[in-house]
């Protein structure tokens, strides 16, 4: 793909309180010979949770860090809250909360002291004590950052992103390293932010996180967008029927009893999957499967009809080979 030309936006579009939270068009970023972002375009609406998914090295962090103003794109346009993050940094930073993927907090500083410092940079900050309590760190308020567990460090970093009452937050893998309790509490927090009108851009490797939280999912690979839609639209209508039974049933004979476009397989042993690619499981298909089972005296256990998971979609789009 050839690189799109740099587009300039008229000056009167540089400041606007409405319009998307983030609007990226034809963005390119190269590091030496490596093209990290290769003509990426996406729009994140205000007041929504937008999840950016992608394998390691897909360009997620580069994309977010360009939006945060850390580096400039080589081509394309980026607008964050209507502003150019590379040029209008001073106007943008007070309005945006940032959670970096790791680090950024001095190791020897107690949690509460760090949050209090950041709160002093904002006009109407959250009460640091309340925020610390909300992320469950009251008991560790006087603990040095380096002595917090990985999940606690993430929670402090999350609190730091919220302390300035931002209208837009960038969360780079917010729940990495958290235990299930902290992860669920973080999901509650993000849901509360969304309910209060905060726009959220997050990256994650947890598909469940994106499915639960996101209004809008953007999957990127090799610096390009490969899918961009709501989680429901991406996973599609119910197109799978799964059941468990004794291993070694003759799936060929099962297939012959089903509508023509269906597929049936056993993987792993005893787990049966019937797919209707691009279609929906109809009542007649369910009847055909159970009738076929009844003829053989087989009881299908854990029989479920469901849509594909976001993980299925993700692996289909980005492939199964391991990334760096």
């Amino acid at each position, binding site marked *: 793909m050839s690189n799109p030309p740099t587009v300039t936006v008229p000056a009167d579009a540089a400041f606007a309180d409405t319009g998307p939270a983030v609007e990226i068009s034809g963005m390119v970023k190269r590091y030496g010979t490596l093209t990290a972002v290769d003509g990426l375009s996406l729009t994140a609406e205000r007041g929504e949770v937008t999840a950016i998914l992608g394998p390691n090295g897909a360009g997620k962090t580069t994309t977010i860090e360009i939006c*945060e*103003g*850390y580096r400039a794109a080589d081509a394309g346009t980026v607008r964050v809250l209507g502003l150019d993050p590379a040029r209008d940094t*001073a106007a943008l*930073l*007070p*309005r*945006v909360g*940032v959670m*970096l993927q*790791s*680090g*950024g*907090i*001095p*190791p*020897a*500083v107690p949690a509460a*002291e760090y949050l209090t*410092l*950041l709160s*002093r*940079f*904002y*006009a*109407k900050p*959250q009460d640091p004590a*309340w925020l610390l*309590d*909300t*992320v*469950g760190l009251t008991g560790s308020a006087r603990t040095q950052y380096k002595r917090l567990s990985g999940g606690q460090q993430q*929670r402090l970093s999350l609190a*730091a992103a*919220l302390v*300035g*009452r*931002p*209208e837009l937050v960038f969360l780079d893998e917010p729940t990495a390293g958290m235990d299930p*309790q*902290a992860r669920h*509490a*973080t999901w*509650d*927090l993000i849901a*509360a*932010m969304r*309910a*209060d*009108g*905060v726009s959220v851009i997050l990256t994650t490797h947890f598909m469940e996180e994106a499915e639960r939280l996101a209004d809008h999912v953007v999957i990127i690979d090799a610096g390009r967008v490969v899918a961009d839609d709501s989680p429901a639209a991406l996973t599609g209508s119910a197109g799978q029927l799964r059941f468990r039974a004794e291993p070694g049933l003759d799936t060929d004979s099962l297939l012959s009893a089903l509508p023509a476009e269906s597929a049936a397989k056993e993987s792993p042993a005893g787990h049966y999957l019937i797919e209707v690619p691009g279609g929906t499981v109809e009542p007649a298909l369910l009847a055909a499967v159970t009738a076929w089972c009844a003829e053989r005296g087989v009881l299908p256990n854990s029989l479920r009809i469901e849509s594909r998971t976001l993980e299925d979609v993700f692996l289909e789009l980005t492939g199964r080979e391991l990334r760096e």
Partner: protein
Amino acid sequence: MSSPAITGRFTPQPGAAPMRRMVAAQAAFESRTLLRNGEQLTLTLIIPLLLLAAFSLEPLASIGGGYTRVNFLTPGVIALAVMSTAFTSQAIATGFERRYGVLKRLGATPLSRTGLIAAKTVTVIAVELGQTAIILLVALALGWSPDATPAAIVVVPLLVLLGTAAFSGFALLLAGTLRAEATLAAANLIYVVLLGVGGVVFPLTKFPAGARPALELLPTGALSTGLRDVLANGAVFPVKDVATLAVWAVIGIALAARFFRWE
């Protein structure tokens, strides 16, 4: 994490605090961090005071020039204190801040880079004021009697400020270009070398005549010589030392501004 009803608490109310409040908060934070750090405190306070006391009480070095030991040492130890705070301590602290991503994270807050530099400057000057007060009290207790004109009230702060600017420029140059460990090693090495050849406790007059002009042109040499001229020789304005420090300040700050990398 607790889960009280948290909805309603995140309604956006963005806005930066006034610049003055941000700089004051960051400077107070950096000063507290520095005072809590034992190694930094050793460098900035304990070593200068030990040298002042030890070399004043015992003839550990031949000083010549007709000075009493404490009158010779006090200006040199003030120069050392300025170097330890503005150069060594600042280089090491900033190097590790860069390595831990602290500078990067601050870059996402409303505190601008100018604001951060201002906060670091305020911190360094506040620490230097504290150091100097303690050193002068100890010196007085050891019998220090300055031979100075009233102009010293202006010229001593001028020399200290120029020295601080020069040392800070080079501190940030090291911290902003080298790895944190390399900065630590280089800053300590330079500190020890300049302590030895900077006219702090060993008079430059005792060095070979050929080396002396060069040593007086080093920032530490210029600062200690200038302070000694004003505080022990009754000089009004040490033109050459002021000029030397000003040149170092311009070079150091220009190089730091050109080469400092935040990440």
